[in-house]
């Protein structure tokens, strides 16, 4: 069995130790903001719980669980300003919710139903939210990295006060997009931040087999992009590191590579069985560093959270979520016309013809509904 994490994390930046004790300078966050971070992380875990159950029951197709990584996305999301963009990978949906993606849109995307803003075209776990500047990823690893760099370049060119925060995993650090993205951003001093979520695994390939570099943060050095190692299970460290990196990019000092060291507690996805390639002892070791328990202990110790309040919080989140799931599961399918729409700004003649021909066949079987009507030619 392979162990994932033996590559150096260079004494990562940490504010809360695993037992919740404070070992660094606390960021300037209000009590309400601190509790909000806990609530955000809990929500991600509640969603994962429900989605995995729905998937096992065959009611949704696919889940990429974020279990264990909640601090990376929630701590980071809180550090961004509303105008900033977050370029995502598979597991950052919780960050989108934290920044404004409505829960019903999130769940609609998991059901790929008629309420999905992407019109049911992408498989599950490909969220987007234009309102909070969160484009969806494609599934191809690392391609969003140069997109974020180009968009950051555009922001500066247009005089906009935006920082583009680009998430990806340790596997993506081997992709073309990582190298071209960091290189272009370094040359352009683009107002962006690279966030490498080092969760130990790219499906079944351990992070030690992904690179011969001494650390992931070292991979920025050759591109003139300063790297920083952070305890990715410490939500406050994630917040503070992203705050400093976005402030710096906003000032025009160029991009940083922030490595959030965490661990993927579940499989790569609902289709993956990690027992085939990794040692459960390593997973247990990380269970003791759980980001949610750490934040809970911290808040309880300072009196921000009453004993047992976290259970109430969890119940509330489940209740809210279950209501949304019931509504979204009942939503209808997308109109058939979406088969050929949004390929181009206008539906061109050949696609109209292809669709109309399809409709003639379906009508023979009485399966078309009025909203599926033919296109004028």
């Amino acid at each position, binding site marked *: 069995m392979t162990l994932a994490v033996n590559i150096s994390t260079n004494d990562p930046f940490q504010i809360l130790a695993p037992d919740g004790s404070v070992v660094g300078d606390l960021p300037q966050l209000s009590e309400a903001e601190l509790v909000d971070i806990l609530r955000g992380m809990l929500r991600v875990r509640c969603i994962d719980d429900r989605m995995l159950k729905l998937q096992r029951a065959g009611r949704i197709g696919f889940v990429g669980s974020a279990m264990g990584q909640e601090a990376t996305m929630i701590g980071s999301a809180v550090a961004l300003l509303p105008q900033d963009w977050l370029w995502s990978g598979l597991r950052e949906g919780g960050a989108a919710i934290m920044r404004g993606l409505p829960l019903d849109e999130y769940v609609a995307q998991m059901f790929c139903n008629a309420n999905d803003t992407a019109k049911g075209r992408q498989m599950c776990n490909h969220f987007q939210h*234009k309102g909070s500047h969160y484009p969806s990823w494609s599934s191809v690893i690392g391609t969003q990295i140069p997109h974020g760099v180009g*968009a950051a370049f*555009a922001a500066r060119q247009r005089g906009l006060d935006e920082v583009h925060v680009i998430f990806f995993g340790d596997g993506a650090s081997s992709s*073309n*997009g990582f190298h071209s993205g960091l290189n272009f951003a370094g040359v352009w001093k683009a107002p962006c931040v690279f966030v490498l979520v080092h969760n130990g695994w790219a499906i079944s390939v351990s992070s030690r087999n992904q690179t011969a570099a001494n650390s992931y943060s070292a991979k920025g050095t050759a591109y003139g992009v300063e790297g920083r190692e952070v305890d990715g299970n410490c939500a406050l460290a994630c917040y503070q590191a992203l705050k400093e990196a976005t402030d710096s990019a906003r000032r025009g000092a160029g991009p940083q590579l922030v490595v959030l060291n965490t661990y993927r507690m579940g499989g790569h996805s609902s289709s993956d069985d990690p027992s085939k390639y990794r040692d459960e002892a390593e997973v247990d070791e990380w269970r003791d560093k759980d980001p949610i328990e750490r934040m809970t202990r911290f808040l309880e110790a300072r009196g921000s959270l009453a004993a047992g309040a976290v259970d109430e919080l969890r119940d509330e989140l489940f209740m809210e979520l279950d209501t949304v799931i019931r509504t979204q599961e009942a939503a209808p399918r997308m109109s058939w016309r*979406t088969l050929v729409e949004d*390929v181009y*700004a206008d539906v061109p003649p050949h696609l109209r013809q292809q669709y109309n021909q399809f409709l003639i066949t379906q009508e023979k079987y009485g399966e078309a509904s009025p909203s599926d009507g033919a296109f004028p030619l």
Partner: protein
Amino acid sequence: MALLTLLQAINDGLRNALQDDPSVLVFGQDVGPKGGVFLATENLTSEFGEARCFDTPLSEDGIIGAAIGMAMNGLKPVAEIQFQDFIFPAFDQIVSEAAKLRYRSGGQYTAPMVIRTPYGGGIRGGLYHSQSGEAYFCHTPGLKVVVPSTPHDAKGLLMASIADPDPVLFLEPKALYRSLKGEVPSGSYSVDLSTLRTAREGGDVTVFCYGAMVPVALKAADQAAEKGIEVCVVDLRTLLPLDEEGVLDAAKRTGRVVILHEAPRFCGYGAELSALIAENAIEYIEAPIKRVTGFDTPFPNTLEHHYLPDERRVLDAIETTHAF
């Protein structure tokens, strides 16, 4: 109107676009102060500054990936890939990202951008400075693929591509860059991206072609006329989406069809044209549809003039089709 080469017309189109729209950017390898290896972007950096026309690091994947992000955030990138042969590192960004962004986001995000790149043979460039790779891209829904063949169309199609809301691959026939001149209006204008052009009228045989093969077809048509065969030459201009109605009309008018391109034959663009005509106009067709193409080989170097279809091979196909 000025008499310009195709290359000058492209330079002129870029200049007009930069003047008209402050969100237009021109960039790529060596496109800045040098003005591009063919000089398509000559003087644009000095006229518009390095913020509008500039060099990038040498990474096609990075150029196109960054262009997509710029387009998603309000700019109008016109990226150059130095030779179409070098575009493949960016194939993923073009095919998986730019072409699919509107669709996969349900129309929430789009990538209106232009990728200019010189394609095709005729400059003794060997395997990697000569290819004609349009078929790879025409198999990609969401992309538009445009190929001009005259200076007038080069500028008008380029300006229309820059104004278009969807990503456009703009293939420039480098063999024609300096080989012909034509009247080009000095101001901004557009040539529609959804219509073909009849380059020559004729009632006996229809030749479909595009880009650098258009002058070859026209020469063959002149020679055919001397033998009493009147050839209609159709310049497709936009390969994707194709003006299917225009193609079918032109095929039906003569009932005899020759398809000409310099790319390899197998699964080439001509196969699609041939299938389109066979599916929709077979009752009008009097003779087998003929294709004149490059060989199904890599692009040669010293023998490129025999790889590329010339007027002899085109004339042979016209005569055979006519005599059937």
